[in-house]
């Protein structure tokens, strides 16, 4: 599987993803890895139908994403999307190899504190991110393709 962007984005498929990122990186496939969405056939259908022309959207559980990665030898430009830190953390710890991870949008919540205007994380999420950094994964904040990458280590 040729993952050209792995991204945490609370909104999953939305304007920035379909209009900016897929075009700039010539994405052919968006793989949403989310256990609860994978069980929601209505919203999975909506995501698939909302894909821009020439892009396929698939919603998979972490387990199925891992299985797919093992058998998938295509060189299609693929975007991996996670709803939250826990989703990315779980897939990587299950053995999915990525070397870069973009944090796009994570909204505020009762236990989350602001990292930037668009990214909020709880202390638990921050320690997961630190753990992933220690595994050698480069994690950065970049909302739009035209924004500069900011190394997450500078912010947490």
């Amino acid at each position, binding site marked *: 599987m040729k993952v050209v962007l792995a991204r945490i984005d609370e*909104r999953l*498929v*939305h*304007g920035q993803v*379909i209009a900016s990122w897929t075009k700039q990186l010539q994405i052919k496939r968006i793989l949403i890895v989310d256990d609860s969405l994978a069980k929601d056939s*209505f*919203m999975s259908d909506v995501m698939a139908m*909302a*894909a*821009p022309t020439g892009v396929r959207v698939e919603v998979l559980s972490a387990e199925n994403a891992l299985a797919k990665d093992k058998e998938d030898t295509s060189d299609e430009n693929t975007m991996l999307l996670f709803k939250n830190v826990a989703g990315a953390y779980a897939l990587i710890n299950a053995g999915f190899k990525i070397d870069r991870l973009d944090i796009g949008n994570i909204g505020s919540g009762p236990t989350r504190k602001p990292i930037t205007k668009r990214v909020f994380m709880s202390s638990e999420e921050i320690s997961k991110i630190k753990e992933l950094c220690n595994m050698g994964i480069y994690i950065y904040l970049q909302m739009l393709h035209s924004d500069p990458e900011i190394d997450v280590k500078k912010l947490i």
Partner: protein
Amino acid sequence: MKVLLLSHGHLAVEMLNTAEMIMGDISGVQAIPLEPGEDIEKYGKIIQKTMKEASPDNLLIITDLLGGSPFMISMKQYNELENAHDHVRIVTGMNLPMILELINIKDNNMDIDELCDEMISAGTGGIHNFVKEREERK
């Protein structure tokens, strides 16, 4: 029938203002912007409330972009509201010809899907590469 225009930023609000500039005062149409960094939950609740309050009247939601947040949030609310199919429709790709047509026909007591078809035809029918088309006519 009630109409709700939804967009990233103020496109929907200005679409309504622009339509009023052409058509005069318009009733039964509301426009809600999605501001950068806005709380998605709160935005969803407003849409949910509008869907509930419109019933038994039809509610037509028009969003700026297929796959964008206003659309995704509307679909989520549609899915969560029981019997939403009875009175709610969601159309994407808002443009001015579409809205002008809608204003002309929205109070005709038409079937909501027929109304959507007419409105969508007007929307796509208003898009032209005009210089090229004119040259080809010659």
